[in-house]
């Protein structure tokens, strides 16, 4: 094995997926290439297994999938669905593992496997679903840092896929990226003029993906088993993992054939289970409807009709399901593009995004070959959520003050953007202004997330209705800046955008966790 100095320094992109993850690096001329893992596979299952017989080793990937039937309690999958969720913790041998730490284990496996292939990861961009909020984006970046990676940015998965797509052919027109992955679904509409890509809008559903289709298949199997034996197929949660794998296999088979025939071995006896594509499609029809709504909503937001879409780019393994493609063909009147590898295009695009980020922020650090390879690519992204502040205007109907969320920066505003609005103090002699930065579409404060709160001191002895100028801006690196200014006194507060919820990690925590993880052996 080569030592660290002799390894090739690489700019990388990572798709940290719900079911599979992968890593790509930019080659000498700026083309992205998948780096296979230590097992020689291009995709690494996003699965973790804590081996009780060898506590010094944590198994990640195929090994973890193979071991998980041995002890499902020490096995973790689909952690991405819990990213940013404070309450999600997996206790192994008395230690709580958060979604960020578990994701860091997967990233560490990708990083170390890359090292085996003689690469030393210099800078990395990790892809996230377009609908991920600030909390989840930050959690993903933290996971990368804990894994010992220098995370220089985050890219939306459909954007990454389109970036890669645009580098493989000449594309003009409105492109809809349909990203149905293992656990999430995103629709992004963009305007492409060869290498110039302008994102118009993104819509996402974080609870719609391959595992939800698997659940439907598992429910069919369970029902059939119960009908035959009058007993439950899964009597203990420990048994579930085995049947989840069966269900996933059946789903995959039904993408290739009209019928799947399997023998199911349960405690009450074994039985042959035959599931037709028709039965499967009927079972997943609510999920397909949900996809249909998202398409409608995305088109509505882009102010486009289906006939105005020129190309559909399929991304994610679940886009292989025939009914998904049939519905798209019916709705848009043409077949979706299947020319790029649906499992890899996000990873490859994330690597390109990493190159573009370095080219923009530190061009001297970018090798000349890569710089030349990427120089024609132009990308304009959008703000993926609405950001606002809580204020107390007077309701016109009742004449009373009401507390409400007022959106300042609207979802799908092209980046970089800068919006200023003026608000007014509420009472005479007000000496303090409570500032809340919100994320969400509602005017009702109950339904929006308060992502930061601060206080701005005001001069005493002033009347009510003094103007406060609030400016929100969002840069191309997806970083938000908020500025609150008391216009009369000139006093201002620059909000450093840090997430103030309990459970968000501070730099010190990240450092400590990174130190701990560096001593953990991942295989």
């Amino acid at each position: 094995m080569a030592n660290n100095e002799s390894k090739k320094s690489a700019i990388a992109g990572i798709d940290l997926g719900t079911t599979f993850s992968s890593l790509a690096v930019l080659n000498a001329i700026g083309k992205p290439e998948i780096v296979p893992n230590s097992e020689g596979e291009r995709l690494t299952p996003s699965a973790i297994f804590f081996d009780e017989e060898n506590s010094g080793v944590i198994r990640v990937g195929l090994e973890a999938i193979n071991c998980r039937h041995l002890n499902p309690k020490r096995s973790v999958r689909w952690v991405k669905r819990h990213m940013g969720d404070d309450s999600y913790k997996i206790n192994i041998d008395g230690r709580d593992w958060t979604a960020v730490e578990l994701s860091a284990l997967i990233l560490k496996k990708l990083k170390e496997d890359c090292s085996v292939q003689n690469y030393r990861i210099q800078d990395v961009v990790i892809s996230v679903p377009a609908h991920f909020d600030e909390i989840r984006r930050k959690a993903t970046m933290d996971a990368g840092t804990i894994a010992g990676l220098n995370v220089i940015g985050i890219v939306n998965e459909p954007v990454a896929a389109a970036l890669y797509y645009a580098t493989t052919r000449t594309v003009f027109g409105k492109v809809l990226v349909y990203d149905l992955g293992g656990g999430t679904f995103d629709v992004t509409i963009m305007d492409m003029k060869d290498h110039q890509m302008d994102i118009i809008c993104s819509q996402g559903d974080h609870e719609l993906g391959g595992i939800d289709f698997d659940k439907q298949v598992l429910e069919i199997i369970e029902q059939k088993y119960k009908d035959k034996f009058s007993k439950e197929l899964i009597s203990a949660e420990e048994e579930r993992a085995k049947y989840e794998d069966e269900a996933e296999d059946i789903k995959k088979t039904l993408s290739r054939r009209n019928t799947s025939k399997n023998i199911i071995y349960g405690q009450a006896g074994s039985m042959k289970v035959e599931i037709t594509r028709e039965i499967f499609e009927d079972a997943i029809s609510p999920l397909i409807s949900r996809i249909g709504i998202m398409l409608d909503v995305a088109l509505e937001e882009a102010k486009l009709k289906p006939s105005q879409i020129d190309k559909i780019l399929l991304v994610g393994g679940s886009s292989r399901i025939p009914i998904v493609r049939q519905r798209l063909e019916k709705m848009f009147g043409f077949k979706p593009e299947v020319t790029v590898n649906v499992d890899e295009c996000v990873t490859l695009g994330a690597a390109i995004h990493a190159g573009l980020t370095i080219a923009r922020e530190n061009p001297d650090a970018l090798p000349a070959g890569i710089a030349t390879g990427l120089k024609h690519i132009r990308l304009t992204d959008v703000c993926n959520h609405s950001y606002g502040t809580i204020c107390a205007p007077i309701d016109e109907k009742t004449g009373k003050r009401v507390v409400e969320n007022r959106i300042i920066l609207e979802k799908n505003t092209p980046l970089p953007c800068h919006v200023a609005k003026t608000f007014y103090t509420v009472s005479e002699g007000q000496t303090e202004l409570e500032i809340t930065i919100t994320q969400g579409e509602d005017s009702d404060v109950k339904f929006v997330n308060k992502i930061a709160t601060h206080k701005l001191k005001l001069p005493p002895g002033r009347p009510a209705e003094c103007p406060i100028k609030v400016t929100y801006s969002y840069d191309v690196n997806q970083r938000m800046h908020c500025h609150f200014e008391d216009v009369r006194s000139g006093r201002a507060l620059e909000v450093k955008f840090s997430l103030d919820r309990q459970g968000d990690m501070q730099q010190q925590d990240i450092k400590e966790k990174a130190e701990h993880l560096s001593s953990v052996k991942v295989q």
Partner: protein
Amino acid sequence: MQFKGLEQFKSWIWDKLKDTGLFEHHRPENQLDCSVSLVTENHQQEQNGGFVVKIKGSIHAPKDRRHTVAQIVITDVTDGISKAKPAHSSLERWQMNDSSVFCYSTELGRLPKAVTKLAEWITVAEIKADWLTLPRTGKRDLLLVVSILSGKSGEKIASTYCNFIYENSALGYIDLQENIEHAKILAVTLAFAVAVADNDVADCELELIKSWARTNIAAFNASNRSKRRLEKAINRTAGLLNQGQQIDISSVCTEIVKLTAHQQRRDILELCMYVAKATGTVTEGKFNTLSDIADSLEIESEQFFEMTERFLPPDICQVKDIGLLVGITSDMSKDQARERLNKQYKKWSSRVTNFDPEIRQQAASMLKYIAEARNEYIE
């Protein structure tokens, strides 16, 4: 000035009236006078009716207090001066500090002399009728007090008064209050209608209704006797309903519509929704009763739907018709239903990542119902 009750207002207005010389046997010579002329409503020119206030006479102002302000207060003395009641203002601008008492004020400018004589009637204010809320509807005897104050110190320099009769076509604030109180009694009836929608009134429902009545109905707190009477009436109603007595929801709602503004009707529907979910589940019968009440209270289906979203989490609604949960009505076309579902989807998909687990759960359920509804109504 904040009035904590009618007595405090009376004491304040009494002092004002004393200043005007109302209780003097002889009004001083060269005193200040005022007059009020009524302006009738002119629909064509979209002018509301109102009062033009004029003053005439002498104003004695020391050199340092010649910059003046005119302040006008209107009092309803229909029942005699000892039972005077203030006119209120619907506009915050013409409210006296923290109270809703009407107090108009306007700059008079700098008086030219120590004794300024106004030989002709000078208009000092044009007060629109819709700025005022009088205590009662019908013919009112109003007392108008004009005070001339130092613009600098607020000290009174001169004052005067006059009476005039005004036919008030709007409901007075006391009328409104009485209507509101009556409507609250009717609200209790509707709450019972929801409670018995599919079975007997449950103890928790009865307790909720009583608790609401205790907090909201003024008579409940007037005296122990009235409290006992109301408690008894509520218990008796519950008993009768459990024996099969019916409530005519439509006629109760019609009466409420006559008595109340839209916002209060929404408050009543909110109470009904709390009663509907008091047992932890909202049955289809209760949900349909709520829908009937909303309809009869003339609350638009969109607003009713917004309220159900807010107060009735989908997980507790045992409603078979998914259209009800997502706001699809039978009169909607396929396109309208699609539009409605898309709108709902946009709203709930942004809530699915809320920090509050309850909202997250509600959002997840709603997204499921929206997809099912699309499957049923659109595809």
